[in-house]
């Protein structure tokens, strides 16, 4: 055993695959200990907040202030509010309104703004101006307010009795807050999804759930496949015929179609993560059964098996003690592949809206399904679906790598 393990860990592919898998497992176990929030809590009012550090604006006003004299601050502020495209668009409008093109210098911000302020009228009809473009100019005009201001902003509170505003403070353009001193900030490393949930927390939980589904489904499929394969291969005769018949039946029916039909018919009420796992397992055993049967048939007439038979051992004992150890390596490899394909199957089902119930637990497939429904990929909200995709790819990549590594060790034809 120790020797085998040492051999396995000498395979580079296996080690890489195993490390990735172990890292995923580690994150899935440790992260929930650090972040105690339920992954399905809706924290964001609005959809698809981009990844980043969210600092409370309110609290930053009351946190200690520092004055920093930075040369490029004003330029940066200006650039963030008035892009080059905006300047060109302003010029376009002004020309459309009858100004001479040569009069307008888009690089001279103060002059451009002056011209704009003097000329712009949202009601003015300019030939060829679409409504979308008109809306754009209204928005642009509103955003230009106080663009070149050098004074700060006033803070005011409302008098509860009179409703009048009372100035309580000033914010200068050179005021800075230290992020570590702001009372409330939240790191959303992967932003939020369409429900306003923290994608990272959801992703970690979902990966865990998907792994659980994979393992349950893999175990179920392997157990069924192994039992039927062993029985068919060793007992032979009528039992073999019947099992082979059933197996062949299942082989010709595409298992994913079967999976869709079963998931649909059990209805959403019963579709917990565990049920889905069992259903996936029940439809995935076929190839394991076939392969095990073939291996057992070739083992059945070996000398040591015949010897065991002559000694009067029971069928059960012969199968467990004399046959199983010879195919154990194959079964382990099959199990790994089953787990990986079960995770993919769950994702496939969930994308069709036939996965586990939404409110119970997040799964990777569910996350992608909702991102698709809310058109995250059209709107460029990559954080809503890409991490889930990457997680599925990583899990199944690591498993396949482990499998190939094991194959190299156990398959005499591949052994170097």
């Amino acid at each position: 055993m120790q020797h085998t393990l040492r051999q396995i860990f000498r395979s580079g592919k296996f080690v890489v695959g195993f490390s990735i898998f172990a890292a995923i497992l580690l994150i899935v176990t440790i992260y929930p200990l650090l972040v105690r929030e339920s992954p399905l809590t809706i924290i964001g009012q609005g959809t698809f907040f981009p990844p980043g550090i969210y600092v409370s604006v309110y609290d930053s006003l009351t946190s200690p202030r520092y004055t920093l004299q930075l040369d490029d601050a004003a330029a940066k502020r200006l650039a963030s509010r008035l892009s080059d495209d905006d300047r060109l668009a302003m010029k376009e409008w002004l020309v459309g309104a009858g100004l001479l093109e040569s009069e307008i210098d888009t690089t001279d911000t103060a002059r451009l703004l002056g011209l704009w302020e003097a000329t712009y009228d949202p009601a003015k009809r300019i030939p060829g101006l679409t409504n979308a473009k008109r809306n754009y100019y209204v928005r642009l005009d509103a955003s230009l307010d106080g663009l070149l201001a050098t004074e700060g902003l006033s803070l005011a509170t409302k008098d509860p009795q009179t409703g009048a505003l009372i100035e309580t403070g000033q914010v200068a353009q050179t005021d800075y807050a230290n992020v570590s001193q702001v009372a409330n900030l939240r790191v959303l490393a992967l932003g939020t999804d369409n429900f306003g949930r923290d994608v990272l927390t959801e992703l970690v939980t979902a990966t865990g759930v998907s792994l659980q589904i994979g393992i349950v489904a893999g175990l179920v499929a392997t157990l069924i496949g192994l039992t039927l394969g062993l029985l068919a291969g060793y007992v032979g005769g009528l039992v073999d015929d019947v099992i082979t018949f059933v197996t062949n039946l299942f082989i010709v029916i595409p298992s994913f179609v079967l999976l869709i039909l079963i998931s649909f018919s059990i209805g959403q009420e019963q579709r917990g993560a565990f049920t889905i796992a069992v259903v996936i397992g029940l439809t995935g055993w076929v190839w394991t059964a076939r392969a095990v049967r073939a291996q057992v048939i070739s083992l059945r007439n070996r000398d040591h098996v015949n010897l065991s038979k002559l000694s009067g051992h029971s069928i059960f004992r012969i199968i467990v003690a004399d046959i199983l150890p010879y195919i154990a390596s194959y079964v382990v490899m099959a199990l790994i592949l089953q787990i990986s394909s079960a995770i993919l199957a769950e994702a496939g089902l969930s994308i069709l809206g036939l996965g586990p119930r939404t409110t119970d637990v997040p799964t990777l497939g569910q996350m992608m399904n909702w991102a698709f429904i809310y058109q995250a990929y059209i709107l460029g909200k990559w954080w809503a679906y890409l991490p889930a995709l990457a997680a599925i790819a990583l899990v199944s990549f690591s498993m396949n790598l482990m499998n190939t590594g094991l194959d190299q060790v156990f398959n005499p034809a591949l052994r170097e």
Partner: protein
Amino acid sequence: MRKVVFSLVGVTMVLSLVLSACAPAATPQVVVQTQVVKETQIVKETEIVEVMATPVPVEDSESLPRNETLYFNGQQWGPVVGWNPYSNSNNNALTIAQQDNSRVTMFETPYLYNMLDGQMYPLLADGPFTWNDARTELTFKLKPAAKWSDGTPVTAEDVAYTWATHIKYNTPTGAANKDYVEDIQAVDAQTVVIKAKLDADGKAVNPLLVAAYVSTNYVIQKAWTQTLEDRSGGDATKLLADPAEDVVYSGPYHKFFTDDTKVVLIRDDNYWGQDASMWGKLPAPKYLAHTIFKDNAAGSLALAKGEVDVSQQFNSNIQLLWLNYGLPISTYLPEAPYGIGASLPTAFYNLNSPGLDQVAVRKAIAIAVDYPTIIANAMTNQSATFEQAPRSLMNPTPGEQALYDREAVKDLQWVGNDIEGAKQLLDEAGIVDTDGDGWREYNGQKLSYVATCPNGWSDWQAAIEVVAAAGKKIGIEITTNYPEWSVYQTVVTKSDAPLPTEGYDIFMMWSDGAGPTQPWGRIRKLLSSEFIGMASNWNGNWGQYSNPAVDELIKSIPTETDPAKLKATYTELVKAYLTDVPSFTLMYRPQSFHAVNETVWTNFPHGEDGTNPPVPPLDLTDGWSIAGLYNLTLVNP
């Protein structure tokens, strides 16, 4: 023989190649044509001759001139079944929809309803309709200019015969109106009288629904109807199932081409409406085309790419298309809610569920729900907020908002997120957590409910999730569940028995939008007990709320003409609704979503477009919104 067939095939192939080479970029068409010919060759040679005789059509979307075609999405989901205006199973979304805002591209109604000002504008009719003094007979005249596509005039006899046919064959329209309309008669060639059904006192049962008939239902040609009757041998099923490819119509567009991938209508350049008594010109686009998309996402992508001009579907976060991508896309209003809310998607309580028979529990859940999150997340802000349009039975249109006294019900209107208020309400009602498990009990039973809506109805599902979250905050366990629509609808619409006490405690359904009978129709469908007992209730009040006082109020509205009394009645109804809370509105939803891409066409209806009467954002096909088709211009003429 065989040689002849082959040479015929050869000639056809060459012919189609040549013809399609003439048409701009119709290469895919060639393949289709040759395939057809090959198939026929094996079966029958006579058909080959037919193929040759008809010119090769150039209906491929690539060959539709982009500058003359207006593309839609969001209406047609699947191939067209037929063109029969008597039937409502044509799956023909571009031409047939008889509803509050009827679709008038191919068939026309006497009047067009405008949801923005609540007025009816004459289309086939000439001038406004009039009631007699007793409000039992409604009279209108037809425009002398109104013509059918075969050139014959539209007459009062056509209107009368359409009604007679609806009744004779018990069509969906007939069944829906026969309790309110006694008869429709032609006085002379131009004058139509609609006689209302009378109650025991000799008063019209429901004048509102009689008046709504003229903007809801198409006028269909008598001569063609008779042809259809002959063809179907008087069999109602056959009549309704007839695909009616030969139908005679009065509208500006008709069938050009349909298959599994698209529907194309072409303008009738002889359309009567170019007469000065109606539009005075033809609608701008020569073709109306609707590609059949797989799902909303495919439709959104096409809108973003400029392959769709008018979009009638939910495009999530639509503002990003212009804010982040700078696309020439706009909605009716430039800022949130982007459109005009018309209907009230509503969560109904199952009044039989233990605890939900208590007003305190119902109200507590309703005031605890975080509506701003529903509107921001589920609707991506494409709904007015409850600050903008306070909760009542009215939709956010100014016309309906003016119909009730807001001050009188101010104290009853809630904006949500009132966790403390909800807790207090429950505590005062004695509904508290007695066994310390964190959940409240009523009569010793833990308050535990299932909130539900159909699976795959994404914005509703997202809303239901938020409702469930509110329960947790006030000590009421609410879990969610999403059955398939087929199961959901059978359970929810079965009003002749109490709803099951499991699985359907809080469930979502729709309400009426904007129309000539609104808000009365909507209120009736939300509150009236007349639907309890129906085996298949597609009207409303699915929670089976029953309040005789409310029923009386609802019944009094259609015959009431005094605006002050109407306002008082509506205010009473709103008061009762917000006090009893048999259901609660979760968001406002537009009559139809309406977003446009101005790559090719411009001058679409928008908030301040200066049109008078205002053109509503209803996809340029429904009710008065069709007026928008006459205002369109090309971006690059």
